[in-house]
């Protein structure tokens, strides 16, 4: 091997990437001992690698898209299984899944109305902040509890909070942004047992409710039912 006259350009990259055989790596290392030009080139590409890795963007919202897709297939499968097993009874039961349980459809409409009013007035939050601690502090000064989860991440961005009157009580409202959608989450004390996130449509809005450890949660947005159900699952899991 002539280490003085030939520069191992292609092999230099393969060496940098750990793709050379042991023999090939040793040859490159040997060449580098005598060749300042190749050493410098290698250092430049190492610096470039560090730069590119520092520019690597987060893409956590991709998981939300994945969940949306898999949840869609999962629900379709459940529906198919339901119809096969139970025929007409299953169809009725499936419908019941979509409908809000008795006594709560009024609240669903109220939740949708509250959200619609805030959106139309352009007053979605009284405190605009991306800081969960600041939002929780502000809600505590309003003598409100329980407080819905405030953490962002996984494609969910915290926008802030406001206070709403719902079901005859003052309620802590946390506002999120998911893509182009504004999402309100409300919470209040409740004696009901735990309920899995259950979406329904109220006019042009989608509402989703769940209950967890003595707290009733309601969520509203202009997303699809499946999408909102997945989102509700993500937010619910932050308060376990």
């Amino acid at each position, binding site marked *: *091997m*002539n*280490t003085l006259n*030939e*520069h*191992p*350009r*292609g*092999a*230099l*990259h*393969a060496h940098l*990437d750990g*793709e*050379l*055989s042991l023999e*090939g790596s040793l*040859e*490159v290392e040997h*060449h580098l001992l005598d060749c300042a*030009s190749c050493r*410098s*080139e290698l*250092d*430049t*590409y*190492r*610096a*470039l*690698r560090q*730069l*590119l*890795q*520092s*520019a*690597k*963007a*987060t*893409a*956590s*919202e*991709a*998981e939300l*898209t*994945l*969940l*949306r*897709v*898999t*949840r869609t*297939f*999962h629900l379709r*499968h*459940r529906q*198919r*299984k339901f119809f*096969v*097993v139970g025929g007409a009874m299953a169809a009725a039961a499936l419908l019941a899944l979509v409908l809000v349980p008795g006594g709560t459809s009024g609240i669903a409409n109220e939740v949708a109305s509250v959200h619609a009013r805030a959106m139309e007035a352009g007053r979605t939050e009284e405190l605009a902040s991306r800081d969960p601690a600041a939002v929780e502090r502000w809600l505590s000064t309003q003598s409100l509890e329980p407080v819905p989860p405030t953490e962002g991440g996984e494609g969910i961005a915290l926008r802030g909070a406001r206070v709403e009157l719902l079901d005859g009580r003052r309620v802590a409202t946390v506002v999120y942004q998911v*893509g182009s959608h504004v999402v309100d989450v409300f919470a209040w004390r409740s004696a009901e047992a735990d309920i899995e996130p259950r979406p329904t449509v109220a006019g042009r809005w989608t509402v989703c409710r769940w209950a967890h450890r003595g707290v009733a949660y309601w969520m509203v947005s202009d997303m699809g039912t499946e999408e909102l159900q997945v989102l509700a699952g993500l937010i619910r899991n932050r308060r376990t």
Partner: protein
Amino acid sequence: MKLIPSTRAADQRPLQVLRRSPGTNGMNLATTESGITVVDDSREFERFARPHAAAALRLARTLVTNEADAQDVLQDSFLRAFRHFRGFSGESPRAWLLSIVRNVSFTLWRKQKRSEPDEPETELEAEPDPAPSPEERLLEACDAELVQAALGQLPTLHREVLVLREMEECSYREIACVLGVPIGTVMSRLSRARAQLVRKLAGDLRSRM
């Protein structure tokens, strides 16, 4: 000097794509009236794809022009991957998923009547042999924003190979699988892409000074 990448037989094989049988977990089965058994693989697919979801979105962002298109490409890719998931049991789920993202991106390009990729391979390969002058110190003055901007101005063929190697840390075999080219092409394309990006960054920095 004759230096080539590893000649181990295992490294020269294309990535294998094997077939697997549908799962038989009774909890996940539904049988239609026509007797067809439908398997709910959604959770299994979620576990399979989740570690690579962010990489898939970053590659989509590399290949299409705006965030909305990238999100559409990602969703279509997951849908397509899920449909073919039962037939897959290859060595690299990541390479398989990323190759789908690439195909879906180029399908979108065709719908938008863009030619793909944006420069003929022959022109790229005909560029002068890369040997950038020592730029390491100059690169120290770069920031992530400048790098993203410079990366965005490279030809797609160069941009994607850099993203796959430097950000996603794919092996040459994985990159070859994603791009559908031989490993030798990956090597030459990567070396030219690096040199081009270094030159671009150096030029941008000098013009700032």
